[in-house]
């Protein structure tokens, strides 16, 4: 079943990706058929199952809170599409 167009439009906005009216139909159908296929998961009984949240069972540990890195302002700005002084420059946000 094709995904509802209003849902596709909402997802597109959340994703910050433009979807033209021409593309909408195709995307609705494609996403719909993938979701239909994924619905297979519904038949699995997962009532007493804890979700697996990562790829490893290694326990996380705390490290000492010390500064051992940093001072890379120049490196960090090196790939900036637009910079002003030592800052990233973006279109005006506040009027």
């Amino acid at each position, binding site marked *: 079943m094709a*995904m509802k167009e209003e*849902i*596709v439009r*909402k*997802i*597109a906005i*959340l*994703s*910050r*990706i*433009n979807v033209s009216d021409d593309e909408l139909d195709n*995307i609705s159908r*494609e*996403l719909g*058929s*993938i*979701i239909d*296929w*994924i*619905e*297979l*998961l*519904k038949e*699995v009984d*997962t009532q007493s*199952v*804890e*979700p*697996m*949240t*990562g*790829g*490893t*069972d*290694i326990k*996380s540990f705390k*490290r000492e809170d010390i500064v051992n890195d940093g001072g*890379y302002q120049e*490196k*960090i700005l*090196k*790939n*900036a*599409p*637009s910079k002003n002084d030592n800052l*990233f420059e*973006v*279109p*005006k*946000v506040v009027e």
Partner: protein
Amino acid sequence: MMSELTRLTISKISKGLKEKKFSSFELVSEYLNEIDKQKELNSFITILEKSALESAKVSDKKIGNGQSGPLEGIPIGVKDLFCTEGIRTTAASNILNNFIPTYESSVTSKLKDAGAIFIGKTNLDEFAMGSSNETSFFGSAVNPWKLNNSDKPLVPGGSSGGSAVAVSANLCTASIGTDTGGSIRQPAAFCGIVGMKPTYGRCSRWGIVAFASSLDQAGPMTRSVEDSAFLLSIISGYDPKDSTSANIEVPDFKSLASSTAKGLRVGIPKEYFSDELDSEVLNLWEKGKEWLKDSGIEIVEISLPHTKYALPAYYIIAPAEASSNLSRYDGARFGLRVDGNSLDEMYSNTRSEGFGKEVKRRIFLGTYALSAGYYDAYYLKAQKVRQLIYNDFLDSFKNVDLILTPTTPGTAFPLGDKISDPISMYLNDIFTVPASLAGLPAISVPCGLHSNGLPLGLQLIGRRWDEGTVFNCANILENSSSFNKNLEL
């Protein structure tokens, strides 16, 4: 002698370099010639001609002085998903077309420290999302193998397609790929080479362009099992910069690979059978069992009951993580920027122009699965199914040491055949995705040719952190199948 150089394994090249039979400079020059001759394979996004030749001179000096590292002077292809300092790193995406990292990934640092030479950055599916290499912004890499009596170009598999092609076509000695749902193993099978995805956490992910963080792992793509084991020992190890990398000892995989396998038990999961499976894939699987039996290994039928849910669970989890990871490409700090009248417009213009079709499709899927009202039904559900899939493996590993399956349901297919049908493309990974979800080590070993002329691989899946046993049995498959011997390697 010279033209044979490009076909040698790491161990043979190391020996030749030390014995001064040839120099690293000669070796790199040979590969660069081959790369030029086989340009139509499109296996590299960036060829590092100048720096590779310069590094080769340095390596030759070190070898002369007896100061060589374990990979000294060995030319390696690096998937263009690893950040390399001062070398453009694109992830095969328009959005990173101009990105030159100011830092080196942990895995490539280890390779450099070992003396390896980077001959080029290899082609891949955009952001490693694909099973054919066709989603690359730079065009697909092409499989060097051909169907009998046909010149049709075939896909190399993906996403590490360029890395597989580079090794298969003798354009470098070995390469490094990444595997999220099969991206090392499937192209290795399609191109007739060895591809190893280690245990999740074995190699640091720091500096690898992220796709799905709970699944991504780096791994070697090589001509032989021995090379695979050797290379994995070098790129493995704890890294404080990746909190999911394991702080445990890295064994000498190469020596484990050649130890005795007698007495091991190998499981055959009945759920991997299907009537739709290519009969020649089935026959090769049977042969694999016989080869193992002949080496004193017991074959046991096992059950992994949740197998059929692995792919649908993967296509929720991986896109969900991807949609989150790829939110960083906003045109503000690095990569492509397409201007707009507002900040929001700049974001969406940049992302619309920068991402290709498959990447957008997965961002949409992931955003949907994580959005309010759908999270429990899709994302949480998929995580629970993932746990059940892992439990299946844990149960099986109480009875067996390894699991043997085909790597792929069939051979490489012609370019263009599946790209317009996402689900049929996703089904390529049906045998590789379960081990990815469970975080288990798994290898693809080339074991034979289909009657259509193309290579087929068998997959061995092991317990977490037990790559040694995986390599051990992989060695038996390699020797018994004589795949490499038939290629006169």
